[in-house]
């Protein structure tokens, strides 16, 4: 990691970097961190997604650009292409989408799993290979995406740190 600047991406937000950044989400529950990168150049981005599908027309808010899966992917992809990345070279990773609460009655409605399914299917439709898929389960996760290495470091409170290489 070194002393690379770590940029924290809050809920519903996204960030892209030309390299030499670490993008982080501290504490993902049912939300999903979608990361995209172009391994050749080390450019990448991260979106902190809340909801499956695409933005309905009735939702006119602009302060949460990564709120919906489809709009978040589109924004990341176009942000990276603006920096000069080639769509055909992009690789993706998904982290999060857990089920956080246990109860005798299911109060959660499975939104974590729906987020993951939605993002997987959009990535498949766009032909972007999913290099890392650390989703589901019953635990919160912190993720740090280091660029230009395109390396994901994922932390859980019980399991400690694991590393995934997207290249």
């Amino acid at each position, binding site marked *: 990691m070194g002393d690379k600047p770590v940029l924290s991406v*809050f*809920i*519903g*937000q996204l960030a892209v970097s030309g390299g030499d950044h670490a993008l982080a989400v*501290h*504490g*993902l*529950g*049912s*939300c999903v961190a979608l990361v995209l990168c172009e391994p050749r150049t080390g450019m990448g981005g991260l979106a902190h997604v*809340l*909801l499956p599908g695409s933005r309905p027309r*009735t*939702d*006119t*808010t602009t*302060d*949460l650009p990564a*709120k919906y899966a489809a709009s978040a992917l589109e924004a990341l992809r176009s942000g990276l292409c603006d920096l000069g990345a080639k769509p055909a070279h992009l690789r993706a990773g998904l982290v999060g989408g*857990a089920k*956080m*609460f*246990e*109860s*005798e*009655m299911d*109060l*959660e409605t499975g*939104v974590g799993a729906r987020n993951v399914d939605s993002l997987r299917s959009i990535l498949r439709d766009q032909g972007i290979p999913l290099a890392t898929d650390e989703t589901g389960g019953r*635990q*919160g*996760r*912190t993720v740090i995406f280091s660029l230009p290495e395109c390396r994901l470091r994922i932390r859980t*409170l*019980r399991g400690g740190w694991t590393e995934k290489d997207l290249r």
Partner: protein
Amino acid sequence: MATFHPIEERELDALREISNIGAGHAVTALHQMTRRVITLEVPAVNLVPFSEVAHRLGGLEEEVVGLFFRVYGGSRGNMLVVMSRTSAEHLLTVLFDGDGPKRPLGDMEISALKEVGNILTSSYLTAIGSLLKIPLIPSIPAFSMDMAQAVVDLLLIELAEVTHQALVIQTDFATRDKTFTGHFCLLPDPGSIETILTAIDRLQKKG
């Protein structure tokens, strides 16, 4: 897209007052269970961006126990009782008469925490409900122990479907020596806050 209407200072005061009454009843129950003196902070009622909610619970990655309830009845929303892991363990030690809790927590400990959450939330909602004359009924509890941001994101996801800010009615409580601290957070649905404000108006006109 529903939004929270701007809330007047007078209404924020009233929301602080009712959450103080609710939290007061809840900590009385907690005092009776634990024989510890528990004090309340002044309630904070704020319309905040989603990113700020977990910051107010001790930090994004702080390990917390979250007890989550849906609120049904005259006004809808979600209630979350949050305490740090060390506070939860302290509470269990007191409840189980000096025996420290197992690590990781077993079914018995989790069940005890859910039951405490249930009593606190029921006291809180019953006090507010009978004051405002609107029925407020909690669901059964759901339990999570993880990073604060991971525990609250479900509540934010649900709000995000209809709005882009969270109205957080938060009251913090603590024992005098701070070995045990926690937070009551009531997050009304945007469509439900009007019901509460109307009931408050009715009450104030009568008084």
